[in-house]
Structure formats: C-alpha cells, structure tokens
C-alpha cells in the first residue's frame, strides 16, 4: 500500500513537471520519464525541509511530497505560453496508459530482461547489499534522521575520522528517509523504480531507430554489464547519477533537433542539475557540453546574446546543485566541517600525470581481463560498431556524432577529474563513473548508420510478409 502511494506520488510529480515544461514524446517514454523526474524532485524535499529548519516527520515529508505533486498538477504553475499552441501538447494521461503492443520476437529479450529486473528488485527489496561507502555515511545518517527527525543527528557525534562519506550528497539520504519512513527497513526500493524506469525508457528510445531485435539485444548487453547490474540493487550514487546525466544529454541533443520543444532545453539543464546534485563533480562534465551548445548555436546563426543566455541557462541548475550540496550543505548545515581544497592535486600542470591517468583508464577499465568482468563485451561491441560505421559509411550521422561527443566528454572528463582529485582512483570512483559512458555508447550505436540500415532492411523484409499475408 505504502509503495503504491509512493509510486503514484512520484509519477504525478514527474508527470506534472513534464507537463509544466511541455515535454512531448512517445507515451511509453513519458511514463518512465515521469517516474524518474518524480523521484528526482522528491529526493530534494527532505533536504529542502531541513534547510528550512523543518523537522523530518512522516507528516512533513509525505505532506511536502503530496503538496509538490499537487502544485505541479494544478493550473497555477502552467506556463502562460501553454495555450498559444506554439508547441505540441504534452501526452495526456489516457494516451500514456494505452495498451502496449509487443511482437513475438521481442519476447525472448523481454523475458530475460524481466528475469534480470525481477532478481534485481528482489535483492534490492529483501537482501540489499550495502557498500561501506553507503553504510558509513548516507545510510547511517538516514537511519538516525528517521529516529531523530533531523539530518544533522547524533551520527555526527561519532568518531568519523575513518570516513568522509558523511559529506556526500544528501540525495541518498533524502530518498532513504522517505522509504524508511514508509516502512521499508532497508529503504532503497526507489532504486528499483529508477532501474525499471530507465530500462523501459532505453528500450523505447532504441526502438525509435532500430529494429526491436537489435534494440532488445543491445539493451540486454548493456543491462548484463556485470558491474552496472550490481549497482541496480546496491545503493550508491553512481547508477542514479548515470541515469540523470544520460537524460540531461538526451534532452540537450533532442532540444536542438527537429523534434525538440522549447521546454526540453531547460529540462535538459534541470536533469543535469539533478545529476550534479547526486555527484557534485558532474558539474565539470556538464561544462564540457557548452562548446557543443555554442557550436550548434553558431551554425544556426543565433545572436551572441542568446548563445550566452543558453550556456548560462544550461549550467545554472548544475551550479545551483553544486552550491547546495558542497557549499551550503557541508559548510553551513552539517555540524562538522570539510576542507575540499586539501583534496586537490597541487601539481595540476603536470600533464604527464594526466596522460598516465588516461593510459590507466584504458588499460584497466577497457582492455584488461578485469574489464570483461565489469562491462562484459559491451565496450568492444560499441568499438566494433563505431569502426564498421566509419569504414563502411565513411561518415557518422549527426546524432551518432553527438553521442560520440558525449562518450568523449565522459572519458576525458573523468580522467581530468581523477587528475584534479587524486582520491578519485581509477579502480574505484572512475570505474563507477564509467557507468555514464555506457548509455551514451548505447545511443551512439542506436544512431549508427550501419545498424539503422540493417534495421530498415529487417523491417522491410518483415513488413513485406505482413502485407502479403494480410492481402
């Protein structure tokens, strides 16, 4: 019962936000997107309540969730432009909940995916593996926040000299507080909602360009990346960070395409902000997309003022999230202090060290035998598709180039971050940061000319039979 209410609340919060920003997409994309957007909004609420000195009781936490959901779904926050018909209307609730059509050849992939999802959800709900990073920080803080009604609780009276996990983003704390208050002793069921929604969303996005068999196969290969799968039921920041980072890029690229709506650019910026809220260093990766925005605006001959405004607008939510989580939360909310400057590399200009970071990333995370235990054959498959695309077609499609840029941003951005913050070790933090590269590779493959050509042939061949048998 509690879970059903939470799910409904997440959905309506997210759906309200999507309508507010007039996000238009396939119904089966809007549905999971609403859940993800809802979870993102709700994750902020316990933290914001605390910043307003409001104690965390079920009535305040669930009350604020209900209120936000209600506000987002009333006419009060509807943008004035909505009635002018300048953009297409967002999906109606009825169309989102319309029946789903599945073809018989999709079933094997969907069945295996469902099995993997079921096992993940069960582990997440019943036997949750919890990393030390979560237990010695956000999980413990959330546990005592539920008992003592505040995030700045007695956990901070303990000797914390062996850990710095108490300074990590309040994203996990917020969601753990909500789910523990709802009666789940381990919380973390929200992670299953994120996992299921993201998997469904990716499948629908892949099917936009690829034949369902190819879409199913590629999605399965990504889901079966062992390390990524493990984090679908083990709470930490990286899986959620990957999801919102990917969505941010997706809507950034989409906002400039023919299907783009004006609200999508701001939605992309918001999603990137959520991703930065989850892991503050994502701000650096977000900034790497500014050249892409400038390049596209330059091509579209947009005035300089608008170009600057768009860059600022894109980075603003991420800057706000960074400000909230690292400056306000750590320096002024938490009862203990943390000096981030002591963690930075004093020899930033030693470029040979940076080069070695990149070499280590390739040798440890991509080409080593260990990398197979992390990602399966997914990265090799992407490399093969990319090479084949370049060799056969000589040219990448525009969306494929965009996604290649995203892959590059994650790879070079993470290397740079590891150089700036030596505590971000290649085998640990950077390995988990690599999650962000996988969905970008997936969408890069979804826009491969070679795979699209293959998909078109498969569809034509298949439809030929349908037409004949129908006639």
């Amino acid at each position: 019962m509690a879970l059903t209410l939470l799910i409904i609340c997440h959905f309506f919060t997210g759906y309200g936000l999507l309508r507010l920003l007039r996000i238009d997409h396939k119904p089966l994309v809007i549905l999971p997107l609403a859940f993800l957007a809802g979870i993102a909004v709700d994750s902020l609420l316990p933290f914001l309540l605390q910043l307003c000195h409001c104690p965390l009781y079920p009535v305040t936490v669930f009350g604020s969730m209900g209120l936000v959901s209600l506000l987002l779904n009333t006419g009060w926050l509807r943008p004035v432009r909505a009635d002018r018909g300048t953009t297409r209307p967002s999906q109606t609730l009825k169309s989102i909940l319309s029946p789903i059509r599945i073809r018989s050849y999709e079933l094997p992939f969907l069945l295996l995916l469902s099995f993997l999802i079921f096992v993940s959800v069960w582990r997440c709900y019943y036997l949750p593996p919890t990393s030390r990073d979560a237990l010695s920080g956000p999980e413990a803080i959330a546990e005592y926040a539920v008992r003592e009604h505040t995030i700045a609780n007695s956990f901070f009276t303990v000797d914390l000299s062996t850990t710095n996990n108490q300074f990590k983003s309040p994203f996990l704390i917020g969601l753990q507080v909500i789910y523990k208050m709802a009666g789940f002793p381990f919380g973390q069921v929200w992670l299953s909602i994120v996992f299921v929604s993201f998997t469904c969303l990716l499948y629908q996005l892949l099917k936009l360009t690829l034949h369902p068999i190819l879409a199913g196969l590629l999605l399965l290969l990504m889901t079966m990346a062992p390390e990524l799968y493990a984090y679908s039921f083990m709470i930490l920041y990286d899986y959620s960070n990957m999801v919102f980072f990917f969505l941010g890029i997706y809507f950034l690229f989409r906002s400039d395409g023919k299907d783009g709506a004006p609200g999508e650019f701001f939605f992309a910026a918001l999603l990137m902000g959520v991703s930065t809220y989850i892991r503050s260093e994502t701000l650096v990766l977000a900034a790497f997309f500014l050249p892409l925005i400038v390049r596209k605006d330059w091509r579209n001959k947009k005035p300089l003022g608008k170009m600057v405004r768009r860059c600022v607008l894109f980075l603003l939510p991420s800057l706000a999230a960074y400000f909230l989580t690292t400056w306000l939360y750590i320096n002024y909310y938490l009862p203990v202090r943390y000096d981030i400057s002591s963690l930075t590399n004093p020899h930033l200009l030693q470029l040979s060290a940076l080069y070695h970071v990149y070499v280590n990333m390739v040798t440890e995370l991509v080409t080593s035998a260990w990398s197979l235990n992390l990602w399966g054959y997914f990265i090799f498959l992407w490399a093969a598709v990319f090479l084949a695309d370049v060799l056969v077609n000589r040219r990448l499609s525009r969306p494929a180039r965009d996604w290649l840029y995203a892959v590059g941003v994650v790879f070079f951005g993470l290397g740079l971050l590891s150089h700036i913050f030596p505590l971000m070790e290649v085998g640990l933090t950077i390995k988990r940061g690599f999650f962000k590269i996988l969905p970008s590779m997936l969408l890069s493959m979804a826009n491969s000319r070679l795979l699209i050509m293959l998909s078109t042939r498969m569809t034509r061949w298949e439809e030929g039979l349908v037409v004949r048998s129908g006639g």
Partner: protein
Amino acid sequence: MKRLLLTIISTSTVLLLVAFGKYREWFLDKPLDYWYGFCAEVRHPGSPEEVRRIRYGLPYTLSRKIQEAAKAGQLHDPVFLFEPNSFYHDSLHIDLRMPEPALFYYYTGLQGVWMNSPTVQKANYLVVIRKGEVKIEHIQTPRQLQEILTRYRSFTPTL
C-alpha cells in the same frame, strides 16, 4: 512465417548469449544464484534482523554481541575501544575485522573508537575478542588507557 523466423532468431540469440563465454559465467554466478536464493527465502523468509546478519556478516554479529553485553552489564555511556584489525590479522592470524566507529554506531547506536582516533581519550571500555567470545574490560584510569595504547602500538588500525 517471417515473424516466427525472427522469433526463432531472437530466441537463439538470447540462448547463445547466456550459454557461452563470460556472460554464461556471470549469469550462473549472479542472477541465477540470486534466483535460487530467492526460491530458498520464499520457503523460509527471514526477519529483517536475520537479513542484516546475513548481509553484514561477522562485524555486525560481533557488534550486536557487544551491544548485548553492554546492556547486560548496564554500562553507562560506554565508549568502546577496539583492538586494531591488524592485531587480529598479524598476531592472532584470524580473519576478523571490527567495524569502524561510524559503522559500529550504525549497527548498535553505541560509541566506539579506534586506537588512533582523535577522541581515543574518551574510551572507557576495551573490547577483547578471543575464540569468538566478546569480553569487555573496564578502563578505569587514563593511565590504564595509556598502557593499553602502548600495548597495541605496533599494530596500525586499518579498515
């Protein structure tokens, strides 16, 4: 007919994927093993406390034992001092890891310190673990605490 053919192709692809190579290894070790775990748990579901014991392992069980001992001994405001993990490993040659103070607090709600903690002076009980048994020794004077710290000085506290 073509749809049937495509269904056969997709079924074969899925079967091949989980039947060979790295994916087979992973599939048997992880999802399938979790599935068997699920089937066993459905037959005999455990309480949240049992699940915690399975999940967090020996450090959790020991922490709970310390908590029970503290309750039984009616200790007032105890701050437990733990022997270094390297002592168990290097001197007693046992694979035992006491949780760090933050984890100990999460498990029990009680305060603990390590030998090198900045707040080690607050310690008033020493936790000694021998042959699976938890013993709690009262530290009555700062001098006694100093002697304990000296005794374990050669063992660096590690996670």
